[in-house]
């Protein structure tokens, strides 16, 4: 039982990370209609710059604002120089341009930081484990990630539902042309949203630094899973990103943890292992295929 709860928490933590990435991506897609493959690059920028500052200063916490600012500034610059020219283009041009950005960012990181993975320090305060239930010790840092994700979720909820900017964001996700027609400074709104998405990606990148490895190409590793979350959740829907992110994180973790053991009841050990791993590797894609077959627009489609 304790194992199940622990795995649930693990799934939750992974899901929260996916949500942080997916929230920005889904907003960028929903409001500007841009498929941004370079979202993973912003995640990488956050991780590298944050780690660099943390290593130079010796403080994890100083790295945090650095990561956020670096990712956001990069995002805003990318928006102004490249993405802005893509709004009127079709998805194919966006795919090609943002793919080009991936190549460029990866190689810039090689030039600036070198090819080897770097070490992100763990904050002293959160390096231990906490006994959350009798007999269940859970790493504090992972709890911190979960908490961060939930705070961001609440913050985004308030921002989107309670502020004027949020209203425009909602309107933009539902009907882009309408907002434009109303005379809102759409360019500023776009830049804001893109910057916010980049900031969240940078946050995700830096926060995962101490548990994952910070290296060139780390953005592509999480990019596909993020897109899966965005599509399952429904394009443009932050609520969808949250539900799909958490759901996917939990399903993925649970499959990996329990499927091979479960299959042992039905087949030979070597087969169970092979099939179990195979299915869990395909798990998130299988899940997306199934969701889309029944709900072609995802769980919470924002477009009306």
């Amino acid at each position, binding site marked *: 039982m304790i194992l199940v709860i622990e795995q649930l928490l693990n799934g939750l933590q992974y899901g929260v990370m996916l949500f942080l990435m997916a929230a920005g991506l889904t907003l960028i*897609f929903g409001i500007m209609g841009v*498929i941004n493959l370079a979202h993973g690059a912003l995640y990488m920028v956050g991780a590298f710059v944050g780690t660099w500052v943390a290593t130079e200063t010796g403080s994890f916490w100083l790295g945090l604002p650095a990561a956020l600012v670096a990712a956001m500034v990069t995002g805003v610059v990318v928006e102004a120089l*490249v993405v802005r*020219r893509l709004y009127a283009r079709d*998805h*194919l*041009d966006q*795919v*090609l*341009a943002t*793919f*080009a*950005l*991936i*190549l*460029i960012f*990866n*190689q*810039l990181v*090689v*030039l600036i930081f070198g090819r080897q993975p770097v070490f992100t320090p763990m904050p002293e305060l959160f390096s231990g484990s906490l006994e959350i239930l009798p007999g269940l010790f859970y790493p504090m840092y992972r709890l911190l990630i979960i908490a961060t994700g939930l705070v961001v979720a609440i913050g985004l909820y308030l921002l989107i539902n309670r502020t004027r900017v949020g209203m425009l964001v909602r309107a933009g996700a539902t009907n882009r042309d309408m907002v434009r027609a109303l005379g809102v400074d759409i360019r500023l709104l776009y830049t804001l949203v893109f910057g916010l998405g980049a900031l969240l990606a940078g946050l995700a990148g830096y926060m995962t630094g101490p548990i994952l490895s910070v290296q060139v190409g780390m953005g592509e590793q999480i990019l*596909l899973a993020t*897109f*899966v979350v965005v*599509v399952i959740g429904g*394009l443009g829907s932050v609520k969808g990103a949250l539900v799909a992110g958490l759901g996917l994180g939990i399903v993925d973790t649970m499959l990996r943890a329990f499927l091979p053991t479960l299959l042992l009841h039905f087949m030979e050990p070597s087969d169970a292992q*092979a099939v179990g*791993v*195979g299915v869990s*590797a*395909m798990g998130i*894609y*299988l899940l*997306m*295929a199934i969701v*889309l*077959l029944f709900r*072609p*627009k*995802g769980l919470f489609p924002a477009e009306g």
Partner: protein
Amino acid sequence: MKHLLSAAILLALFIALPFIADAVGQSSLMILGARMLAYAIAAASLNLILGYGGMVSFGHAAFFGVGAYVVGILAYHAGGDPLLGFIPGTNQMLITLPVAMIVSGLVALVIGALSLRTGGVQFIMITLAFAQMLFFFFVSLTAYGGDDGLIISRTNALFGLNMRNRMTLYFVTLVIAVLFFLVLWRIVHSSFGGILAGLRQNERRMSAMGIPAYRYKLVAFVLSGMGVGLAGALEANLLRFASPDMMHWIKSGDLIIMIILGGVGTFFGPIIGAAAFMLLEFYLAGWTEHWPLILGAILLVVVLGTKGGIGGLISRLTGGRT
């Protein structure tokens, strides 16, 4: 007329390529040229649904890999134990290529039948999802080398030709490519091609005219998968190697990039795009180890600065005569 001219120029270039390569002392261009042809076939096949039909598949590398593995697995069993106990292996190109196309077509039928229930970005993602599943399948397929790939000891045999000779191999590939493009030309300019274009522009109107949209799109998807499978089978013959890397999502991306680079929805665009992309990669990598940076910059300039890719650019420079 102008198409005939473009075709003649392209064909002349490809026929001359081995001789030019020899003359300038870069005979490695021959295998590069043959691989360009294979990728041109793949990109053009994808362009059938992507450019003409408006269906953006991000998972076509799956068929490329399936085609390659058909050649690899058949060769692996040639002269040895039959596959699954009853399918004899073979090393004859006249058998392996059609089988590669049929198997890719069948896989495309399944993937297409499910994927075409969605559209737009969801279609992009669901095709990607199926390709990833196949990728992971082949990665864990230990019997055929898994991630390390499958080494094919000999190039497929054809009419007793010496397939070890690179010039022979190149021209065999060229003949197959020419045949493929002739068939593709017929498809694109048939009533089927017209309906496909109509579906891209306005699916609702076509449906109202009594056209079964889903069925037409599915047929196009299967044809496209078969073409890409043929390309994969050729690549496997050229490299004498098949690996899951051939169905990685980056490869699907490469195919799309080739199409955009050359010109979406044009007949010759994918050929130009495939050639341009591979030449760029080849020469940039030879020039500097930081080639991805330059390749990225060039792609960015092309997409932001030109409309309709290189094909469109040429078309405008020559006053619309491509």
